[in-house]
């Protein structure tokens, strides 16, 4: 996981603007040794947490990252059905999972991740009014967005899908999957092109898709406009 200086500067600059507290959960694999020290067992977890600490350290204390170990906190791992590590979860005050990351928020994915943090903390959500207007027509849904680190259009789709989840009062869950890091998931869906968006494991949207298209796919019909 390359964390070059330019991206660190972006994280520092943007996270400094966070003015409301926000908390996310990160699941890693950690063992507690006999002497009480903790060791991360998964190879990527150390680098992953190092990246997330950059977000946290530059947030003026507004971002709290709760690291949970699937080894030491099995009940949480079971509750949230954590199948692999590391996993980031945005869980609201009612315990509802809104966004799940099986991807590192780095490179182009920094900005949608930061946007999600801000919205989760209470910043206005551009899509909120229309999502709420159409919420009764959306069944409980999961949007899975397959991405790669180098995909130029993936951040846009991730941003939209994440904002939808955050506006949906728990009805929409968004899962972001780096399929180079999780090739079995990509193979399961036969995805060899990104962004690759799957809604409820039934509808597939290939390539760059706008907010309209994703919302239409969720509704299965025309969008009710809120103004």
């Amino acid at each position: 996981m390359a964390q070059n200086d330019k991206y660190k500067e972006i994280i520092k600059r943007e996270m400094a603007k966070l003015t409301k507290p926000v908390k996310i959960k990160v699941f890693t694999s950690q063992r507690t040794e006999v002497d009480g020290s903790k060791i991360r067992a998964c190879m990527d977890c150390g680098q992953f947490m190092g990246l997330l600490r950059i977000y946290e350290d530059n947030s003026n204390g507004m971002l709290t990252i709760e690291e949970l170990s699937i080894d030491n906190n099995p009940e949480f791992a079971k509750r949230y059905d954590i199948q692999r590590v590391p996993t980031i979860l945005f869980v609201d005050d009612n315990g509802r999972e809104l966004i799940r990351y099986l991807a590192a928020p780095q490179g182009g994915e920094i900005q949608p991740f930061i946007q999600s943090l801000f919205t989760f903390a209470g910043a206005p959500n551009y899509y909120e009014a229309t999502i709420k207007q159409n919420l009764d027509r959306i069944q409980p849904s999961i949007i899975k967005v397959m991405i790669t680190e180098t995909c130029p259009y993936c951040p846009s789709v991730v941003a939209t899908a994440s904002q939808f989840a955050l506006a949906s009062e728990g009805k929409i869950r968004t899962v972001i999957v780096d399929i180079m890091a999780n090739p079995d998931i990509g193979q399961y869906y036969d995805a060899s092109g990104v962004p690759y968006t799957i809604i409820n494991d039934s509808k597939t949207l290939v390539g760059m898709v706008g907010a309209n298209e994703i919302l239409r796919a969720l509704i299965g019909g025309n969008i009710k406009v809120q103004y």
Partner: protein
Amino acid sequence: MFNIDMESIDLEKTYDLIVLGGGPTAIGCAIYATRFALDVLVVGKIFGGLIATTHLVENYPGITSTSGQGLMDMFKDHMNSLSIPYITDEIRSIENADDHFILHSFFQKFKAKSVVLATGSERKKLGIPGEEEFAGRGVSYCATCDGPFYKDKTVCVIGGSDSAAKEALFLSQNVKKVYIIYRGEEIRAEPINKKRVEENHKIEIIYKTNIVEIKGDNTVKSVIFDNGTEFEVDGVFIEVGAIPNSDLAKRIGVKTNEKNEIIINRKSETNIPGIFAAGDVADAPFKQAITGVAEGVVAAYSAFDYIKEMNIEY
């Protein structure tokens, strides 16, 4: 970027200029318009536009070599330095309300005294059996996005343009073999890229051939040529040109030509006062990022002039 700071976007006010698009034309226009002290908002479906998918940009004057994404990162930095708000959305209609326009998306409504249409173009499809069925499962329109999935595999690039040549060159870094399949007798790449293709042992060109079908099971396995030959490949990259995104323009009465490109004059004006156009969506004979940016800048200046005239009291 990606409307991180919603609080900086005022949905009640009438902007001086709303620029539609997310590519270099739109961003270049917005930068100049902001420097003209216009109140600007950019609304684009895809930040970066088509150029973001290009792995090699060597003909943007001042920049020896970069990727399309690298170029757009520079545009993004410049835009952010001027705090120009950008929204990821798509405008579906524009109403003309005398001294301003009302722009509607499915999510919000905006008002502007002037509009620049820099909506670019999208990749043309072949329209052959299997193309849609295997989209994302072996059929791709973006080598930068999807090339890594074909490591040590055999792929084909359909098309003979400079873009097709560059796609083949990019893919050759990872794949076992690239076939450029072109209906013409000679590819139309820039001489420098044509030479690179010819010297690349992983790339082979098959001339005077069309693909009529794409076949496979869960993923692409082969293509069928127009002479009936079935040719085994693992991936098909389609690079057969682009079509202008001018549907919105046509819906609101902006004049287009027979290629559906928006007709503009040398001031980037369309037939509707207050609406300007620039870049790939407009009718320039030669389309490049730099020419699009130039038209966008002209559009910004023309919008500035237009608004200045509007604001004069008699």
